[in-house]
């Protein structure tokens, strides 16, 4: 019995002194470089940023006040047999979180063409090298289903539709368009001149695909990038955007509509999943608890991708435009 009581006493002592056990939520710091570079086909100046991973004492990364940007790295882009070197630059922009000027790297006179492979090699100030590679899409092969008119006429049913549908595709990805890992960002733009004090000012109006009620206001909603090459605009929404051009201006003849066109940005096979992963998570289309950590950088984090742009003009019928009282440069 004494032995039994002894064991009980030892047991109780052990469990009582072990009432609290610490452990580390924080693992060994994962010190990595983050290289972001999205090559644009609509400009000849290309930008990149480099930053570093960081730690915070309290597990709230928003409390980090030290901008993790990395300067003095050497970035080389290998493109069409040439080497483009990106230089340290400070932009006239302020980082909203760190409240510091935006530091980045840039290279001028680099025009990105369709169907090209571009390699990147980044040598960090400490000598570490990270690499990445991407291939621009064959956007010069892109095909529209058009021609498009607003409003759209259905010749089979012989009636005017209340919407206009745009469709486009890349023949290289036609075999299985739904499994192609591509993303498209469409944008419908109205380009017009507005006369002000005798001068004509070139202006643009981006057409939303919907208006959403927010409180007591209607807020425009623009089409989100999508996986499939199709987007639809209600004729009424286009009409509303048309009216907004001259809102509060009774003299409608001050407005000359130059053209209406659809622009589609086509994300390459690196950029598409990077964008899609965040969008899929943010939109609730995934049941995962956190977005995937997707990176296209060898030896680091970040994104090295490109997008191409294709445009398609849209014809407007006179009788449609007459509703708004505007002039039209290319009247039908």
């Amino acid at each position: 019995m004494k032995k039994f009581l002894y064991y009980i006493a030892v047991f109780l002592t052990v469990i009582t002194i072990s009432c609290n056990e610490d452990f580390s939520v924080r693992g060994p710091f994962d010190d990595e470089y983050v290289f972001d570079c999205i090559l644009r086909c609509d400009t000849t100046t290309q930008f990149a940023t480099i930053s570093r991973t960081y730690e915070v004492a309290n597990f709230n990364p928003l409390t980090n006040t030290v901008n993790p940007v990395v300067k003095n790295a050497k970035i080389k882009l290998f493109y069409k047999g040439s080497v483009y070197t990106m230089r340290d630059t400070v932009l006239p922009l302020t980082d909203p979180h760190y409240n510091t000027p935006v530091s980045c790297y840039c290279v001028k006179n680099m025009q990105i063409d369709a169907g090209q492979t571009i390699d990147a090699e980044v040598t960090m100030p400490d000598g570490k090298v990270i690499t990445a590679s991407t291939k621009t899409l064959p956007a010069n092969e892109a095909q529209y289903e058009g021609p498009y008119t607003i409003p759209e006429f259905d010749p089979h049913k012989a009636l005017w539709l209340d919407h206009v549908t745009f469709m486009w595709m890349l023949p290289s990805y036609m075999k299985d368009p739904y499994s192609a890992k591509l993303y498209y960002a469409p944008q419908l733009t109205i380009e017009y001149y507005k006369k002000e004090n005798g001068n004509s000012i070139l202006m643009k109006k981006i057409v939303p695909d919907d208006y959403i009620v927010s409180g007591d206001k209607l807020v425009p909603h623009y089409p989100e990038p999508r996986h499939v090459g199709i987007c639809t605009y209600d004729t009424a929404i286009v009409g509303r955007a048309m009216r907004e051009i001259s809102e509060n201006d009774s003299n409608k003849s001050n407005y000359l509509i130059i053209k209406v066109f659809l622009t589609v940005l086509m994300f390459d096979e690196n950029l598409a999943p990077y964008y899609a992963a965040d969008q899929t998570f943010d939109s609730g289309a995934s049941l995962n608890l956190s977005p995937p950590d997707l990176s296209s950088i060898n030896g680091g984090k970040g994104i090295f991708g490109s997008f191409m742009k294709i445009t398609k003009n849209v014809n407007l019928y006179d009788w449609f435009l007459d509703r708004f009282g505007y002039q039209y440069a290319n009247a039908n």
Partner: protein
Amino acid sequence: MQIKKITSLFFLFSGFLFSQSELSTGTEIQNSGAIKGIVRDSSTTEVLPYASVSIPELKIGAYTDNRGYFIIQSIPEKRKYRISVSCVGYSSYSKYVYVKENEITNVEIYLTPIDIEMKTIIKTEKREKSIDQLSISQKNISIKDITDLPKGVEADVLRALQLQPGVQSAGDVSARYYVRGGSNNENLILFNDAPIYNPFHALGIFSVIDPETVNSIDFYKGGFGAQYGGRLSSVMNIVTKDGNQNNFAGSASISQLTAKAMFQGPIPNGSFIVSGRASYSNAILKKFLNNNTVPIDFYDMSFKLNYSDPEFAPTSKFSIFGFNSQDKIDYMNQLQPTYNWSNSIIGGNWFHTGDSPLFSEVTFYYCRFTGEQSPNLGSTRYMKNEVKDITGKVDVHYIYENNNELYGGLKITDIYTALFLSDSQGFLNDLGSRGSNIVVYTGYKLLCINNLKADIGTRINLSGLARWGSKFLEPRINLKYNVNPVLSLKAAWGIYQQELITMSDENEINTIFEPWIIVPDYINPPNSIHYIGGFDIYLDENTFIDAEGYFKITNNLAALNKEKYFPTDRDLVSGSGKSYGGELSFSYNKEPVNLMLSYSYSWTIKKVLELEYYPRYDCRNAIKFDVIFDLGSGWSTSAMWIYGSGTPYTQIDGYYDKLKLYNLFDPSEFFLSHSPYQLNGDLNTQRLPDYHRLDLNLSKKLKLGSLKLDFDLNVINVYNRKNFFYFDTNTAERVNMLPFLPTLNVRMEL
């Protein structure tokens, strides 16, 4: 392919055993009679499952099934025999029965509960049962086991399971459990044969089953027979009380969380029982939820109506049963989401014994589960899940004169699932589907050979829920060999399939409800193979050692696709899993002490998308100890200590500012749109501190005339162990499980 080979071997082996049993049946006694009957509690008239019925003179006997029925065959006819009946918690009873030639004599036996007579308990039947019956990985849990032990707030059926070796708890604040490395959704919970799809109240803190309504619980940790299917890991079969056939009776009790009441009584040729429970205060729940107030509101209610007409159908019993539970979390704030979920069951059962050693049962039920998460004006997305299950089934058991049993059945199930998820535009996508499952099962229990017992059976899925027309065979075998009166060896093997799964991230700390769907057609339904072996040692009449080892392989494990980048990518991918381990338990039951000590050692490994990892519930070592001490004069005390070595977690290795793209038409976004992203270490490679907790209970039963009062004082986490629950990265705070917590329950019965 491997499964096909194994299945062929199974049929060869079964054929061999069956031929052996046929040889032994050739020695049947001619001109014999049989005794068939039912054993009941004399005070409540409830049937008594697993009571021992024997004829000492002939050294033969049987056990009642979970409906209280038994049959003893091959009794030499034309004379009187003394039959002896005993059951844990009841005075033993004997009576003389005259056995007629080639006839079955029906008897109805009433046992008197021990607490009415005070003391003298007979427990020898527990040992006999273990020797004679196939009980691998199986446990009959009595309500007394549940109510006598320390309780969180009130006695809980699912929490009581966590004392079983091989069962891993999801934590103090959850009644969810994991059995031998299987996920939570691999556990089948049956309420009078009908499945409960979401058996949890209040964020999973309590089960929806009120123990007051329960008559018997069978729990299988694996290796379950061909009569059960649809889940990979475990089965819990709950049979509710029938109600008092003689007197009206009622009870009411109140805890710090709920108030509940039960009423039962006779109806012409039958009985009824109705019970209800509702939450009335959230104060105690704050202790479970790190002092956060969550406006949890729930209730559950059930009923059962039994009818047995001695003239119209003297050997039949008809039952209608129903169950409903409802939970609601409403913050009364338009910026906070609202949650609603409910379970409903309505069913009927016709049990028929007839004048032959044939038991047949026809059951039908309709189950519905709905769960809805409404964001209101908040940012949470809308989600709604619905499961409708209509099932009809027939079960037949035929007992041979040599006690062997042939059983079989047909089950037809039609299941509709809907899972509506909203996208960022508010459009609803439905991931649900509909399917029908037709399954035939059959099995043969070989009990006539003295030392060897076997249960060989198979389920034949003639059509699958997931794929109409797809067939799948689930052969099973369960063996026991009594080496001598002290030592028994046991083994089980089987293939199990599951076509209904839940879709949720297994790393979620506490899910409100897990949405069910039929396995989508782009992945194969999960299946598992159980290999179990072990031995029982009966040291003496009161002391028992049970050891089991297991190896479980799971194929086509449905897991969330962590590489879902595009909305069109599949939500689920097929993985695989394996778990293995050993369990050793020691139990001692001699008045006034009832003690159990167990140790389990286990490994669980999953492989999804080429990544091998230990799931969050992989607990390497677990020790569980409970003791109940009857102090006499209505006083009793109990203690429970649970230890579990640290479970896996993933460390945070840093952060980086990730480029978030919204509008690439705006060139400045590239420079200005970054948000912090957490870098995690290798998945679940670290271990949390060990878990352990000591709970104590002191209870007193009082009888004032016809009024019975139970007072129940519990102290949870006596030495205030700070068991880790989760780390709140928003506040950088460690959140622990239940602290030192005294609770008091009062129960009143009339």
